């Protein structure tokens, strides 16, 4: 499938470019992942720092933070997701166009963090939407976000466009809309989306 690397270099010297549609397509996707301009708590400050000159997320093709979910490819859930905010986060994710990715940034977004045992904080956004990369930390350093971004790029680069394991946006039968939880009388209903987050079995 892929072109032999040595042969590719030799051909390149002759001014011939040989590639595959898959490589070209994935290169295009991973090199222009535009995040959504969207911050929830203190992790958003680190996210802002990551985009600024010192850490410069623009080096990875993520220079434009889009203020609309329609134009964004990546949702960085940066901060505590309260139960009051969770339906809006899921709704924003539903409004994003495929292909779309999610980075859950920080202890709160991946598990509830220090507020895990509280009544008002969601114990991880992965209960409702599929998360591609989790970053632990409270808050994670900008380097950690860059690491997560590079992990996401590697993941995109490795995706095959055909076959059973093709990404969701190339699968017409795949689920595209995720259930928005409702705010019930005591808690969110349902408390998780079983299609996205099957309850892990704890083995001790």
């Amino acid at each position, binding site marked *: 499938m892929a072109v032999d690397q040595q042969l590719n270099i030799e051909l390149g010297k002759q001014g011939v470019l040989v590639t595959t549609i898959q490589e070209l397509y994935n290169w295009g996707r991973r090199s222009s992942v535009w995040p959504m301009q969207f911050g929830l708590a203190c992790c958003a400050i680190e996210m802002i720092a990551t985009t600024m000159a010192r850490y410069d997320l623009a080096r990875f093709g993520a220079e434009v933070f889009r203020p609309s979910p329609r134009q964004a490819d990546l949702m960085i859930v940066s901060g505590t997701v309260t*139960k*009051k905010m969770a339906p809006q986060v899921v709704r924003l994710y539903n409004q994003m166009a495929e292909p779309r990715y999610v980075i859950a940034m920080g202890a709160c977004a991946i598990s509830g963090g220090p507020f895990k*045992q*509280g*009544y*008002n904080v969601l*114990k991880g956004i992965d209960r409702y939407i599929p998360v591609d990369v989790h970053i632990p930390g409270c808050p994670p350093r900008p380097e950690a976000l860059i690491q997560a971004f590079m992990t996401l790029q590697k993941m995109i680069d490795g995706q095959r466009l055909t076959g059973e394991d093709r990404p969701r946006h190339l699968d017409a039968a795949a689920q595209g809309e995720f259930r928005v939880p409702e*705010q*019930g*009388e*005591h*808690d969110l209903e349902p*408390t*998780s989306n079983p299609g996205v987050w099957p*309850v*892990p*079995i*704890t*083995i*001790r």
Partner: protein
Amino acid sequence: MKTIEEIKAAIEAAIPGATVAVVSNPSPCAQHSLLVAHPSALQVATFLRDNPELTFDYLSNVSGVDWPDREIAEKVKVTRQVTKTVDGPDGGKPDGTKIDQTVDETVEETHKRVEPGFLESVYHLYSIALKHGPLVIRMRTANRTDQTTMPSLTPVWRGAELQEREVFDLYGIVFSGHPDLRRILMWDGFKDFPMRKDYVDPDDFEYEPTPHDEVLKRAQAHSAANHPATTDAAQEGAAPSQ
């Protein structure tokens, strides 16, 4: 600043019929507070703000307190008359036969009474103009269940608006006269009051990677109720291995 007793006397002199009590604080800070009754609360608040010697023009903080029903056990010494059979030369007849005698006996008895709970709101007042404070005033509801209304002080200090909404949201104190009493932190359809002592928070303990102590108990209770198949594994992990 005037002492709390002087302020109390000033209020009572200015507003006839005002019921104000001093709640003393025995700790070293000695920050005593004024317990204000509902009917005159607005008048008292207006007086505290407008009186030239007090001028409490700044409301710094409103907080709620939940005082649940308390069961108080009191030990009381009770003296009753008991009939006893005594013998010997002092109490009985000289020939040694026994007689009945009435004796006073002191017994310690434990009385239990339930002190009904109430909800309380606490206001911290400062004077920016005269640079003094804080003055702490309190109001209490009649109980914790159905009579949870108290007058709002938002007409006097506008800064109370959002904080009284928060107290309403988390404690369920209904402030009558509040311009916009809605929930502020939790959503509108929420029914509970999370900061009350008897609040039971939702059971989302389906997955706890590293539970311990209280969380372990709740995770076990959850798995026992919802996933009977996995209960054994959870309990095995729970038992201390050493």
